[in-house]
């Protein structure tokens, strides 16, 4: 039996016109992000909307598939079997798909190495957008890997126990996180000791062409600038952030992927279909004005356009690997303890 509801019988004004008499100091509640940049709900809606058009959404997976493949290839560098792996911010399980691909061995004499998925027993794909996560649930690659899908309430709060995973992967979703330091600390917490975190995210110069040309178009047409392209973490920041979160033995590198598009509108439509449209809190409501789009087309092409009439868009990927501290883990030697001069091995001239 349902408990009787009191609320409908309460006089309406009693609920609505409640005057707040207590006042308190404006203090930062612990655990809440200090800085909100992105509207997580907008991002959720954009992803759901993108995933609703399955055909189109699959067509624009080229970038996420490529990055997921490049990220999961790095698992090869770790000679280990992973029992339980978390894919954080899984999008449409691009990492799971990349793991089940036949392993492209650079050595043609042994092309028959098994796919990467044989290196792990259980993959948990976690993502806040249900539509995106389950988009490819009935495709054949699901049978080749022991995959569990888990819908998260919020990617900024991980619902997992400490010391759960043997590795955490994350591909192209951390650039929408508001509180990156907190998330990295949580990742460190859910990892087992001496387990790696491997992530790929958009960084620094991603879409700088679009960013600058939209700024110019905004300036000239409307006399001001409004944010259209997200602020992104820089390579230099990531080292500090990972270190602050307690990761050891960091490896960070960048990789540019330049995609050519026929025109700026094709680029923006693809971004939308990926679910990667603008979700900055301070963004303007509604679409970009047509005047600005028209101006942007001319400026972008004039500034950056290729000779064949296409326009390039740069995606800068930051790949990072960090290890949770564990016993018997290899540690960097103390400073100044080197016995061999590196120039003796590598050669090279003197610095003048």
């Amino acid at each position, binding site marked *: 039996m349902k408990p009787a509801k009191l609320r409908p019988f309460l006089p309406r004004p009693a609920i609505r016109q409640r005057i707040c008499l207590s006042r308190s100091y404006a203090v930062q509640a612990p655990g809440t992000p200090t800085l909100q940049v992105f509207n997580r709900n907008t991002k959720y809606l954009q992803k759901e909307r993108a995933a609703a058009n399955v055909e189109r959404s699959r067509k624009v997976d080229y970038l996420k598939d490529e990055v997921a493949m490049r990220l999961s290839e790095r698992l090869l560098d770790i000679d280990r079997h992973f029992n339980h792996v978390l894919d954080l911010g899984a999008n449409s399980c691009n990492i799971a798909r990349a793991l089940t691909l036949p392993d492209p061995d650079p050595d043609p004499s042994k092309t028959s190495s098994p796919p990467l998925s044989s290196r792990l027993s259980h993959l948990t794909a976690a993502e806040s957008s249900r539509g995106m996560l389950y988009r490819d649930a009935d495709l054949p690659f699901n049978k080749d890997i022991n995959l569990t899908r888990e819908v998260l309430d919020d990617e900024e709060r991980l619902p997992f126990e400490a010391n759960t995973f043997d590795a955490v992967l994350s591909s192209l979703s951390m650039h929408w996180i508001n509180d990156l330091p907190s998330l990295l600390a949580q990742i460190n917490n859910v990892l087992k000791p001496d387990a790696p975190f491997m992530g790929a995210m958009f960084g620094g110069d991603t879409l700088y062409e679009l960013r600058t040309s939209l700024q*110019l178009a905004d*300036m*000239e*047409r*409307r*006399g001001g600038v409004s944010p259209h392209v997200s602020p992104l973490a820089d390579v230099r920041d990531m080292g500090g952030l990972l270190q602050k979160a307690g990761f050891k033995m960091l490896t960070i590198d960048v990789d540019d992927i330049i995609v050519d598009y026929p*025109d700026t*509108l*094709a680029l923006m*439509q693809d971004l939308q279909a990926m679910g990667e449209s603008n979700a900055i809190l301070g963004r303007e409501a509604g679409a970009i004005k*047509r*005047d600005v*789009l*028209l*101006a942007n*087309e*001319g*400026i*972008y*092409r*004039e*500034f950056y356009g290729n000779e064949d009439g296409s326009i390039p868009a740069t995606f800068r990927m930051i790949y990072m690997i960090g290890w949770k501290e564990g016993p018997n883990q290899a540690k960097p030697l103390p400073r100044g303890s080197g016995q061999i001069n590196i120039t003796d091995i590598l050669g090279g001239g003197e610095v003048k």
Partner: protein
Amino acid sequence: MPSRTRPIERFAQAVAKCSAEASVYGKCIVADYNSIHKDKCLTEFLRLKDCYLVVAKKS
């Protein structure tokens, strides 16, 4: 049923036909992009917009 052309696609098609005007406008911006102010390249933009409006009306 033929698939509906999204408005943005129609917009893109029309814009593509005005590449000459878009290029003139772009050149005007690029020539001095450090001191952009409102309506700096107004005449070039209006020419581009006129072209777009004519093309958009035809299709």
